[in-house]
């Protein structure tokens, strides 16, 4: 089965490569190389330890979205601040709607030849409008930039492949909210294979909040990859509101001393939704810091997976790293797998990780009920409290408020009715 899908993807992406999409010859060469890499690597199966809990192949669409013309003309509602927005329709950059403040510059993506996995390579070889966003030296922008990936009817049963590289030059500072949305969340079926990369030069400070609010029966494969230089700080939060199948790869490399990262996340699942978070933080230099809080709320018959690898290489002394994974199981059939892993090759480090799995405390619910709240309301409050812990990590006020709002709305409508109250 997996071979059939793999072969179809090879065939269809090869056809896409033949289409004139206006890339430079050298870039096209790089795309062909990426295509070969995807061909050789194949689609990871569950025999691959990193994909142990997720069989992705049967949930993939096999055709690519090939039209490079965008038609949407209204500014999507999710844009937080209209002074800065980058809009993708079905993986295609919409240059008419996108607005950028001074200090930020969009260019075509440069060639790449190293890929983290086969989906990264597939994305490179099939991304129709790959972009590079440069944040110029010393640029500090105090309002958030919104990157929207909007999917509509024309992408049904297709794979959309947005790819964006964000290059933060020295001393720049920016908050980015990247949101994946669909205009008909209850109806459409498609696959997103998205790659968002960051390169932070010395003392850059980037906050990235990714919200995954795709159609309920879509498949999402996402990669967030960051390289952090000396004194720079990369803050990331992934908010996953649940869909048929999601895989979020988060990869942060701390390459120079005093690089810092915090990789947080929250997922809220219901029905038979499936989310697989795979995060890898690599401390390649001494005096680097990482901090991680991942929370999961699972209702219905959903299945959540968290894998958190922290790797400290040889001689990367005096690193500090902490990781915490907390999960709340709301229903009898919800299922969580968690693998917090530490790989330490240096002796003078402080590393810790923790994982907990539990349910809402009866005492806490009783306390609220005794104050006159109905049972459902009490439980809902407790769940919100649980989630707020993670959302509070968002530094930018506007993004945090937006996340809280979207989480509360989403959680109220869908998840709570499936609890075993």
């Amino acid at each position, binding site marked *: 089965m997996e071979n059939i899908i793999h072969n179809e993807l090879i065939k269809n992406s090869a056809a896409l490569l033949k289409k004139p999409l206006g890339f430079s010859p050298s870039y096209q060469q790089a795309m062909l190389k990426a295509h070969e890499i995807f061909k050789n690597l194949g689609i990871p199966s569950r025999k691959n330890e990193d994909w142990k809990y997720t069989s992705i192949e049967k949930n993939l669409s096999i055709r690519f979205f090939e039209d490079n013309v965008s038609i949407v003309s209204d500014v999507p509602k999710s844009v937080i601040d209209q002074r800065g927005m980058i809009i993708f329709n079905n993986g295609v950059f919409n240059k008419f709607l996108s607005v950028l403040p001074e200090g930020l510059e969009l260019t075509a993506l440069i060639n790449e030849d190293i890929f983290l996995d086969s989906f990264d390579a597939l994305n490179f070889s099939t991304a129709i409008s790959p972009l590079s966003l440069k944040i110029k030296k010393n640029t500090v922008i105090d309002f958030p930039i919104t990157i929207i990936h909007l999917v509509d009817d024309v992408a049904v049963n297709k794979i959309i492949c947005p790819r964006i590289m964000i290059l933060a030059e020295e001393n720049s500072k920016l908050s980015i909210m990247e949101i994946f949305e669909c205009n008909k969340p209850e109806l459409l079926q498609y696959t997103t294979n998205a790659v968002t990369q960051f390169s932070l030069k010395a003392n850059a400070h980037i906050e990235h909040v990714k919200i995954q609010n795709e159609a309920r029966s879509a498949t999402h494969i996402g990669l967030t990859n960051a390289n952090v230089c000396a004194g720079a700080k990369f803050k990331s939060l992934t908010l996953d509101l649940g869909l048929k199948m999601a895989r979020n790869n988060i990869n942060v490399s701390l390459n120079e001393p005093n690089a810092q990262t915090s990789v947080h996340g929250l997922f809220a699942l219901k029905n038979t939704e499936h989310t697989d978070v795979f995060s890898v933080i690599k401390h390649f230099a001494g005096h680097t810091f990482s901090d991680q809080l991942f929370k999961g709320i699972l209702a219905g018959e959903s299945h959540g997976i968290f894998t958190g690898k922290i790797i400290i290489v*040889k001689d990367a002394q005096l690193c500090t790293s902490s990781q915490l994974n907390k999960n709340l*199981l709301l229903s009898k059939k919800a299922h969580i797998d968690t693998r*917090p892993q*530490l790989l330490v090759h240096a002796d003078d480090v402080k*590393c810790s*990780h923790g994982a*907990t*799995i539990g349910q809402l405390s009866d005492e806490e619910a009783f306390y609220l009920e005794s104050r006159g709240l109905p049972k459902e309301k009490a439980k809902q409050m407790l769940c919100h409290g649980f989630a707020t812990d993670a959302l509070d990590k968002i530094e930018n006020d506007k993004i945090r408020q937006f996340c809280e709002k979207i989480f509360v709305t989403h959680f109220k409508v869908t998840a709570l009715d499936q609890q*075993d109250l």
Partner: protein
Amino acid sequence: MSTDILNNDYKYGFFTDIETEEFPKGLNENIVRMISAKKAEPEWLLDYRLKAFRHWQKLEHPKWAKLVVPDIDYQDLYYYSAPKKKNAVASLDEIDPELLATFAKLGIPLNEQKRISGVAVDAVFDSVSVATTHKEELEKVGVIFCSISDAVKERPELVKKYLGTVVPYSDNFYAALNAAVFSDGSFVYIPKGVKCPLDLSTYFRINAKETGQFERTLIVAEEGSYVNYLEGCTAPQRDENQLHAAIVELIAHDNAEIKYSTVQNWYAGDKSGIGGIYNFVTKRGNCVGVNSKISWTQVEAGSAITWKYPSCNLIGDHSEGAFYSVALTNNFMQADTGTKMVHIGKNTKSTIISKGISAEQSENNYRGLVKIMPSATGARNYSQCDSMLIGNRAQANTFPYIDVKNNSAVVEHEASTSKISEEQLFYLQSRGLSEEKCISMIVNGFCKDVFKELPLEFAVEAVKLIEMKLENSIG
């Protein structure tokens, strides 16, 4: 601080020259039949061995552990070796004096006179049990403690009922190998309501050159019984790698409790990483009954490669499993060890405390699984895995897997990695202690949670062992 620990020469590195009877090298159906015939085993056991052997042929060496295992040529090993026997052993006088001297060197109280220590020993010298002490006292209360070959002869119905029920031969590569060629081991049966009057103990010794040792231990605790079982291991110094693939099966019925403690100090290879024992062990306990308890305590201080995951299947409601482990690696040792706790019954509880210490170029991995099945309502788990690194070339990794399918479960996992703190070291040194003594004190404190689970005499031995391994530390 760069603490470099030099390996202490292996204290138990001597070789007893006893004539051994060996089968030809290699493994085939014939060898399996020969082993079975040698032991005059019944038909069903031979069938079991052959089934296991045929299954083993289909298997491949497992690769998932984070270990570098050199290729082992299974056809280049001896699968059976026994000290030459003069019929059955009636009294200690008949035992080879050289053998007795070996045990004396190891400090095993084999002599009846030495039974003040209160430990009954079923000494396994290479593959055949030589003598068993305290048998009479145990017989009085109905406890069966004998070698598994004797058990097959005397209580075949019990062995047949339980053998392979916890670790089936199809479980893994080494389990299949063991099931095909197991030579000997211990069998313990505690009848209903009996609290075993003694702590039972087996000393294993790998002796004859190039002999893989395939021990098989089976412990059955009937309703309401209790037993404390100790296992300690030493092996002579040798350059060729030796294979050890043991199986331990525990079965606890209603309200029964089994405590299984191990101190493992096999030869770990020399300072450049040559030689040493390969220790591939499958240990598992089934808490079948209501309120049953199984606890594994281990101090792993030897072996070139350790691949060992003492596990508990918590089947009975309210049953409890525990795993306490100290794993120390130095030089080029590799350890991939941990546990599996599978919660099946209601209100089952498990505790995991694992302490890893890695020094020099060694690699120490914790790999554990906590699995809560949908049926395990009210299950509870607490895990704590701490690692300590000594020297900047060592590695410490933790790979916990937590798999929860029931929302009423409460699972907690904590882990940390650090080095010996400068402040603690300075504090102790300012009190006039040598650096070496300080390190050993801090390490002992680090391992305290596990040592306190060991029976007294074992705890003393374990503390000594760790101290010995940390001797000659350079601050």
